[in-house]
Structures are given as C-alpha cells and as structure tokens.
C-alpha cells in the first residue's frame, strides 16, 4: 500500500500515507493550482503510487476526482468541513470511519490499531514542536527538509532520524522574518531566504507551524471523534473559513517572535491563499510590517523568487 496524500487534513492516524511534496507534472489544466495539478500528475503517472487521498477544501481539490476518473488506483476524497464546530467534528469523524472501511475493502487488508498510530503521530508532532521553539537557533532549511523526509516514510518505519539530526548551530542573520503559506514543496526558496541573511523564526505552514505540538489529547471518547477534533481544532487553514482567527493568531506570534517582515508564499491560482493575502496585507500594512508575496506557478517554480527575496531583504 503506497497512498499519496495531499494536505494536512488527511489524518496519518488511519493508515500510512506518503505526503505529496512535488512532482514534474504535465500541468495542462488552465487557471488551476500548480500544486494540485502536479498531485494529479503523480497519481496518474507514478507507478510506485497505488492510491490517493485528498481533500475537498478548495475549488482545485474539489474537481480532482474528475481528472483522476481514468485511474484504477485507490481514490478517496475527504470532504473537509467548512466549519469547525461540534457538528463538523461529528461529521468529519464519520468520514474518517468511512475512509478506513474504504481502504480495507480496496486493499483487502486490515488496518492496525489506531491508538498506536495516534501515539506515533503525537510523538512526531511534539518533536517538531520542540524544534519549532528554537527556530532562531537552527537552520530552517534543515528543519523543513527533515520534516518533509519524515512525512515521506511510513509512520511505523520512522525513527525520527532526520529530525533528531538537526543541530543547534546558532546561525548568524540580519533580520527575523515570519513565513506564511501552504505546503512548501520547493525548499530551495528557503535556501534563497537564508542566503539573503533572513532568519525564519516562525511560520504557519501546514507541515510545520500548524502541526507542531498538534496532538490527540485523549481518546477515551470515540477515537475518530478525537482525531477529527484534533484536525479541525488546530491552527486553521484558510479553507476553514475563519480568516480573522488565522490572522490574529499569526500576528500575535510574529510580534512575540519579533519578526521584522513577513514572506507570504502561495501557488498561483490557489484562491484560499489569494483571498487570505488580500486581508493579511492590509492588516500587516496597518502594523507597518513589510510583506513579500511570492506567487509560484507550480510545486517546483523558483523563477523571480531570488531577485524578489534579495530586494525584500534590502528593504528591511
């Protein structure tokens, strides 16, 4: 079983998945998020992948099933609730139960003990949390690469080697910045940022700031409800429709971390982040916090980023 998952809404507690991080795809769908386009390509073309789990959380992910229709691989779309209240938690828990049944039916394989997997995810996220707290003393590039490596292997196979190898090096830097965006498939951008003397001291990325210390606290209740509660209650994605809560949390954190600027990375045609940016930018302007917006064409795009980052660093 090698299932490619897209987004942090696909809970690793149910079964092993490989987190999609980037792919050289065909990119032939116009006005469509390059990241989602590349995900479709990998599911269709990569023979080492035998299944896909993805959310319905934005317009690009919403129509993925239409493009995967010809594939005989396992496919499951999780309808991520547009809200985070108790009804939504109950509804999402139902979907997680259905997801498990669907996987077991397709692969003719019984999935293991969920509580055991919960503990493994908790442990991993706490380790990420421990490094997140010392971002100003480690290389952010090493940190994100280690997380991506961690997400690309099966949970039970992971010994957290990559994460544990991160060293506290107290790198020198000129300015402290805060990073905002969706899954950062292309970590070369970070190399450019750090190369310009900018230190990323905090972020709201789905693979970092949003999952660090995100744990299932107790699963005495229905285990699916517990996972659902965790996924829907942690730091929010813009697809969960509460921009004010996102901005208020992030701004508090960036002030606490003394961030001097913000780098906002989004995929072209990623509407949730485009809408969020329009509100975010105004808020940061009010607070006199400079912001650089990098809009990337796909999961590998780097064009123009270097020059823009250099220019931004000069303004700080």
């Amino acid at each position, binding site marked *: 079983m090698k299932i490619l998952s897209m987004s942090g809404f696909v809970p690793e507690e149910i079964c092993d998945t490989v987190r999609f991080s980037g792919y050289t795809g065909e990119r032939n769908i*116009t*006005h*469509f998020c390059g990241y989602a386009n590349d995900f479709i390509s990998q599911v269709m073309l990569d023979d080492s992948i035998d299944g896909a789990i993805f959310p*319905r*959380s*934005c*317009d*690009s992910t*919403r*129509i993925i*099933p*239409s*493009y995967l*229709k010809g594939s005989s691989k396992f496919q499951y*779309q999780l*309808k991520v*609730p*547009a*809200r985070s209240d108790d*009804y*939504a938690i*109950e*509804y999402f828990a*139902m*979907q997680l139960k*259905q997801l498990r049944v669907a996987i077991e039916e397709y692969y003719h394989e019984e999935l293991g003990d969920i509580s055991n997997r919960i503990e493994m995810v908790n442990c991993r996220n706490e380790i990420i949390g421990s490094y997140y707290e010392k971002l100003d003393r480690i290389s952010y590039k090493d940190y994100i690469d280690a997380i991506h490596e961690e997400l690309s292997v099966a949970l039970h196979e992971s010994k957290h080697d990559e994460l544990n190898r991160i060293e506290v090096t107290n790198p020198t830097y000129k300015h402290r910045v805060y990073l905002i965006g969706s899954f950062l498939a292309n970590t070369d951008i970070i190399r450019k940022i750090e190369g310009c003397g900018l230190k990323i001291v905090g972020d709201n990325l789905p693979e970092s700031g949003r999952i660090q210390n995100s744990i299932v606290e107790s699963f005495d209740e229905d285990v699916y409800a517990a996972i659902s509660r965790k996924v829907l209650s942690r730091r929010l994605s*813009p*697809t969960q*429709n*509460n*921009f*004010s809560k996102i901005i208020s949390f992030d701004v508090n954190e960036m002030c606490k971390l003394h961030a001097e600027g913000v780098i906002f990375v989004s995929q*072209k*045609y990623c*509407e*949730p982040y*485009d*809408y*969020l*940016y*329009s*509100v975010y*930018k*105004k808020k940061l302007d009010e607070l006199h916090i400079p912001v650089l917006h990098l*809009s990337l064409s796909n999961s590998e795009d780097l064009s123009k980023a270097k020059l823009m980052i250099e220019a931004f660093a000069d303004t700080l």
Partner: protein
Amino acid sequence: MAQTIGKIQTRLMREYYKYFSKYAKGKTPESKVAWVTSFVPVEILEAMDILYYYPESYAAVIAASEREQELLAESERQFLTTDCCSYSCCIEGCVSLEDGPRGKLPKPDILIATNNQCNTLPAWWNILAERYNVPLVILDYPGEDMEKEIAYRYVKSQHDDLISELEKLTESKFEPEKLANVISNSERSVKAWQNVILNLRTKDIKPTMLFDDINYLITARCKEQTAELYDMMASELSQKEEITDGKIPVFWIGYPLWYHQDRFFSEIMYDYRIVGSNYITWWNLDYSGNNSSEKLFNAYNYTFLNLSQKTRNARLSKLIKESGAKCAISLRNKSCKCDFVSAKDISIPKSEIEIDMIDRSFLDIEKATGVLELLKTTIH
C-alpha cells in the same frame, strides 16, 4: 400580456434595488440585511423578513453596464488578484470605491455563504466579513457522496443554527408555517421556470432572454409573483412560431457572458442556434421532502455543482439529448473551475473556448471563430 409581464418584472426589480444607494436617496432599510451567495436557502431569510442581496448578481450587472474593467483594476489595488473569481474582484472594486451602476449595495448586518456551488464563495465572504465586521455564517453541504442520513443531520443542524442566529439578529421569533409557505412559492417558481425554458428548443426565442430572466429565479425565487411571471412567460412563448432556420443546434455549457449585450458571442455564431444551456437549469432546485427541513436539505445539498462527476454527466447528457443539440460549446471559465469539468464526458462533438463571464478581455474572438469553424466540420 407583454405589459403585465413587464409590470411584474419592474415591480420585482424595483423592490430588489430600492435600497441600493442610487435609488435609496439616503433611506436605510427597515429590515436587517444579509448578503448571500446564489445557493443560500433564502427561504429561511424570506420567512424572517430579512432583506437579502446577491453580490454575484450585482457583478453581472456591473459587467453588463461596461463597468467591470475599472472595478477589476481597483480590486488589484486592494491586493485581491484578478486570478480570483471575477465576481469577487468586481465587487471588491465596487465596495472599495463605493461605486457601481446602481450605486452601493445596502450595508450587510450578516453575511451568509454556502459551498454547494464552489469553495471560492466562502473564501470571498471572509474578506467581506473583515471589511464589514459583521457575523459570517458558512453553510457546509456535503453533496451526494456522504450517506444521506448523516448529510441530512449535518445540514439540518446548520439550518437550525442559522435560524437561531437570525432570531437573535432580528429579535423576532421564527414561524415554521411561514417558511412552509415560502418554500411552496419557490417550488412553484421552479416549476413555472421549467415550462419557460422548454421553449428554447423549438421556438424562435433568443437565449439572451433566458440568461437574463433566470435572474428572478435566483434573486426572487420565493416571492409569490415570480411563479406568476414565469407562468405568463411560458404561455406567451408557447404561442410563438416554431423555428425553422436550418442553423446548427448547439448546447451552451457554462455561464452567460455578462459583459456581452447578447450574453453569448452572437457575432461569430451566425451558423449556430443555442437550443439548450445547463446554466439556465442550475436553480431548478428539487424541493422534495415531507417537511420544510427535508425540502431545504434536498434543494440545497444536491445543487448541480455539488453533485459527483458521474451524476453531473447523467444530468447533462439528459439535458443535451432533450435539447436536440448536435454539438456543444463548452466554456473554460477563468472564474469557475467547478463548472468547466461539467462537460468533460459529453458524447456529442464539442469545442472548448476560454472565457471569463465578467472580464471581457479574456476572450480571443479570432481564436473562438476558428474553433467554431472547426466544430462545424465535425458535424454530419
């Protein structure tokens, strides 16, 4: 007869626009105001005497009034990229400049959006919520993949919560009987509209009229006069001559071009006649059920754009078959990803044309002409 149709249309439109700044002359609404997306269960609002307005429809009016370019430019100045849905960009420009062909929309007391059409609308409503600092309600409709009983419970709980929220806002008690009456108005409007659009296939009518007149089903479906209006229109259209122009019958898949005076590129379609369109069926909501809760669930959980590709294919195939179309024009709309997959699996020859329903600069008319010429060669 025509005059009576005109009178009802005028009355409905006058009622709808009376608090827009151009006509209100400083007068403020006597009721609470909601801004809603096109598939919000407005029957609940109507039953609670709340005024509701559709920014999407107003964006269409803006484009029809040739004002969209200046407002799209303003949207960019407000940091909202025009890669986003043009409805939202147009309105962002409009609310920022406090200007539009009919002035400003009345200020909202509450914002309500649904995801049974697309996921863009809730995101757009978030930026409106930031601007106006009023409560935002997002209604989440699971669609058909989720077990019906679970989906029903989830949707009903949200509708119940919406009612409680509106009771607080209006400081008045919700009356279930009133809702039942309003829903039957909507049912009648849908039925009457279905009779109107039946005529497109055989009668000498311009699709422009239907693209425009569906507006009453969108903005006034639960008003009593809407069914009356459509009944009159259906009766009038049925008496029209049968069409015998020998043009190629074509099915239009996608939005009308709101900026175009005919709502479609009539100048290059002289060999074609539009005999069907999926857009004009989107608000044919199915209010089946034993009580108001079930009716609203069925109507709003199973909207066309909230269906699976498989069900959409089946519905679209049926519509195309009934229309007698020999080919289709499928619009790849920059502003609507959810719609352009609708036409993926149709069985008649089709041509894809890239457009935006609001931004006229998107259409390459020469390219479209070539595409339509090519389409002709595939039809026997």
